[in-house]
């Protein structure tokens, strides 16, 4: 009797499967038609904690290099130069800064996004929240060098942020 039971079971379960697939023809697809047919831009749909590309706000970067030390794969590269400022006071900083005191300057702040694994370990120790995740995620490129994000332009060193001065 297994013989007829098999036939019956096959027919019944195939029928059941067909009803399910038939019912799915009358449901809305859930696909989001990225990138051009979304209801709102994808970047607005992302949750607040989304981990996109890293970005650094150089205005509040203290140059402490904690992020560089935290990075497990050394994709952050910061160079600090100790420099004695020239006698005339710099226009950007106040006059009291000058003198012969050696001053730290961030000459290089590179993040190799091609290497980055978006783990978030660098954002946690940052004392001012200067390094953080943006929501940007689209940066396909043919040139891998374009994935080296340079937050300090060459030849234009940035003075680190100091709590007392701001």
């Amino acid at each position, binding site marked *: 009797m297994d013989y007829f039971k098999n036939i019956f*079971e096959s027919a019944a*379960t*195939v029928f*059941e*499967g067909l009803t399910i697939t038939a019912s799915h023809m009358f449901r809305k697809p859930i696909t989001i038609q990225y990138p051009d047919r979304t209801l709102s831009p994808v970047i607005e749909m992302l*949750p607040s*904690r989304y*981990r996109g590309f890293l970005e650094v706000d150089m205005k509040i970067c203290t140059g402490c290099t904690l992020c560089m030390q935290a990075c*497990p794969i050394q994709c952050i590269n910061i160079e600090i130069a100790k420099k004695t400022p020239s006698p005339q006071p710099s226009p950007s900083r106040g006059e009291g800064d000058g003198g012969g005191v050696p001053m730290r300057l961030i000459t290089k702040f590179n993040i190799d996004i091609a290497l980055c694994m978006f783990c978030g*370990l660098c954002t946690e120790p940052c004392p001012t929240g200067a390094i953080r995740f943006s929501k940007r995620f689209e940066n396909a490129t043919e040139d891998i060098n374009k994935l080296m994000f340079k937050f300090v332009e060459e030849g234009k060193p940035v003075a680190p942020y100091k709590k007392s001065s701001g």
Partner: protein
Amino acid sequence: MIRTEEMTISMGPQHPATHGVLRFIVKTDGEVLHEVKPDVGYLHRSMEKIAEKVGYISFQPYTDRIDYVCAMTCNHAYAMAVEKAAGISAPERAEYLRVIASELNRISSHLIMAGVMAMDIGAFTPFIHAIRERETVNDLFEMLCGARLTYNYVRIGGVSFDAPANFKEKCVEFLNHFEPIIDEFNRLISFNKIYVERLANVGVVSREDAIAYNLVGPNLRGSGVRFDVRKDIPYSIYPKIDFNVPVGIGEAGKVGDCYDRYMIRIREMKESCKIVRQALEQMPEGEIMAKVPRKIKPPVTEVYSRCESARGDMGFYLVSDGTDKPYRLKIRTGSFSAMSIVEKIAPGLMIADLVAFISSLDVVAPEVDR
């Protein structure tokens, strides 16, 4: 007796059924297999050596990559190992969040397994349905920690983010939506006669073999052995939670066949839903991160921590020499031991059975090689 000439076929590393980069050297005379040799190592990334170089905290994101289908439990197991060595204890709310995240991830991992199993048998629709549900879990994770695949959520001493304001409602909404979907999935594919016939009595792993070959997790339970780290060596908050451990009973064929292993996963998804519900109910308010020094320096010690991952008993054996980097870290994963049994069970199966057998073991290639 007529004997035909055997041919040796290399199945993989680029074969659609070998999820990732596994390779099997198959000797066959047509359809029936005579010998199958698993050839692992195509995805070896020297995880254990990396751990010796990068230190305790920096290794945390690497644990995501051990088993990317179920990364939360890897995170959890590693965090537990270091906590045990350094004598840190995570706050209770963090433990609850860990369990919620792990169980949601177990659901998503089992969904992948169930879907891929159906796809290997030839049905494409269940796979996409499973992926569709997994996307919802991923959305929840994205809300929780900002990532969809490699979470790095469970940290040494706690978790990295507290649950967002509406996380609980979203979770419950998902579970309410998901539980009927499992039933629909079952009606669509699990109880389908062709599907049952393809899986029942195929690749039977006996109880003795399962223990001897060190199978763990759902593969072991599929062979009728009731062993679950969550129940038998309880950790985190699992003792406070009421759930069942499904065991293979041979409902369509013999105990320990592919269908048993498959149904165990389906049942575990339901159990995971139960666990998440309870954990969401019981979750207390409070801290989510214990005080952890910037450089963890455990005393000279050796610890072993076990965690029930979606692929079974996941172990981290940690030898500390008092510095901020582990002296040795051994990762013990379920997929690796599952691969060893292929050689024993496969002769006599057909090529189509081998595909079903491998996917019923739920092998994830990076977890095999690490």
